[in-house]
């Protein structure tokens, strides 16, 4: 006897349920968490270090570092900056998922953290599909990557709350049409909060830091 069974279930439903658990755990400890995504070399770690430098006086921070290989270069840099950091080695996987982040969260003392920065694996495709349970998704797009990224990787621009345009100190040397880039972003994610910065010089960080601080304080009320 043959029978058709309707299911209609999102394929990554189980990941989404785990992400929801992570979210609850973070909320219970009043931790505001951000998921930082970007392609390899866009400057994620430098961006996080610059953010830490600007916030470490006023907030207690923690970092989860995702990497595809068991190297601790990024985690070492963070630890050197005096922050609790947990390294996740994805064993070649191209993205973090909610399960990995859940295990990493359990290694941190959440009562001692106000803001958790999760550095995702450098990739513009896969991380977009996997919810982690964080409160805001941040995408870093850097000037030398080119102005066509929203057109080529539309998916990752859809589910983000903040866009960071990084390495703006290189604008004089690179053919990057800011209008063209921003138009592509606007088509995919209208009114997206965008900050243009240089993680190297610290230019443009005031507004980003102010936005972030406001959100962290909001999470604690």
């Amino acid at each position, binding site marked *: 006897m*043959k029978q058709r069974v309707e299911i209609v279930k999102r*394929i990554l439903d189980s990941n989404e349920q785990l992400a929801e658990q992570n979210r609850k755990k973070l909320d219970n400890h009043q931790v505001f968490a951000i998921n930082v995504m970007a392609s390899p070399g866009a400057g994620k770690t430098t961006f996080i270090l610059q953010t830490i430098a600007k916030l470490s006086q006023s907030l207690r921070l923690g970092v989860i570092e995702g990497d595809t290989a068991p190297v601790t270069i990024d985690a070492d840099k963070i630890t050197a900056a005096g922050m609790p950091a947990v390294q996740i080695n994805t064993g070649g996987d191209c993205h973090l998922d909610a399960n990995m982040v859940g295990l990493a969260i359990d290694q941190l003392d959440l009562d001692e953290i106000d803001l958790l920065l999760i550095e995702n694996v450098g990739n513009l495709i*896969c991380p977009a599909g996997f919810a982690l349970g964080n409160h805001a998704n941040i995408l870093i797009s850097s000037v030398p990557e080119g102005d066509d990224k929203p057109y080529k990787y539309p998916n990752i621009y859809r589910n983000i709350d903040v866009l960071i345009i990084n390495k703006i100190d290189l604008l004089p040397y690179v053919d990057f049409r800011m209008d063209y880039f921003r138009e592509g972003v606007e088509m995919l994610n209208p009114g997206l909060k965008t900050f243009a910065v240089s993680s190297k010089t610290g230019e443009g960080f005031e507004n980003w830091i102010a936005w972030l601080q406001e959100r962290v304080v909001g999470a604690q009320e």
Partner: protein
Amino acid sequence: MHELAVTESLLAIVVQSAKENRAQKVTDITLSIGALSSIIDDSVQFYWNHISKGTVAEKATLHFNRIPATMLCLDCSTEFTLEDDLIPCPNCDSINLNIIAGEEFQVDSIEIEKEEENNNETKS
């Protein structure tokens, strides 16, 4: 890219549903995959053939219902489908758009074989 993880999740959903419906065998699986979801059919099928071995859904055929990316212009109400590139409204050139389809990523249904509930009916 992440098709292995996706295919594993798919298998878990199918096996669970087969169990709930006391299926002996899953023969067909229908999926809706939006063009914007960055999933490659062939790759999912490839992983499926490997990881479904020994399960109730071994050798099930995957049917991909590919949904094109469809945009709605919020200024002139033109609906248009994206072929390859992201483009402004072809009618009025506006970038004030809404994505109304193309982000689907779900299992729609499965077809299963069940044991006859009453063996006497199999005489014919």
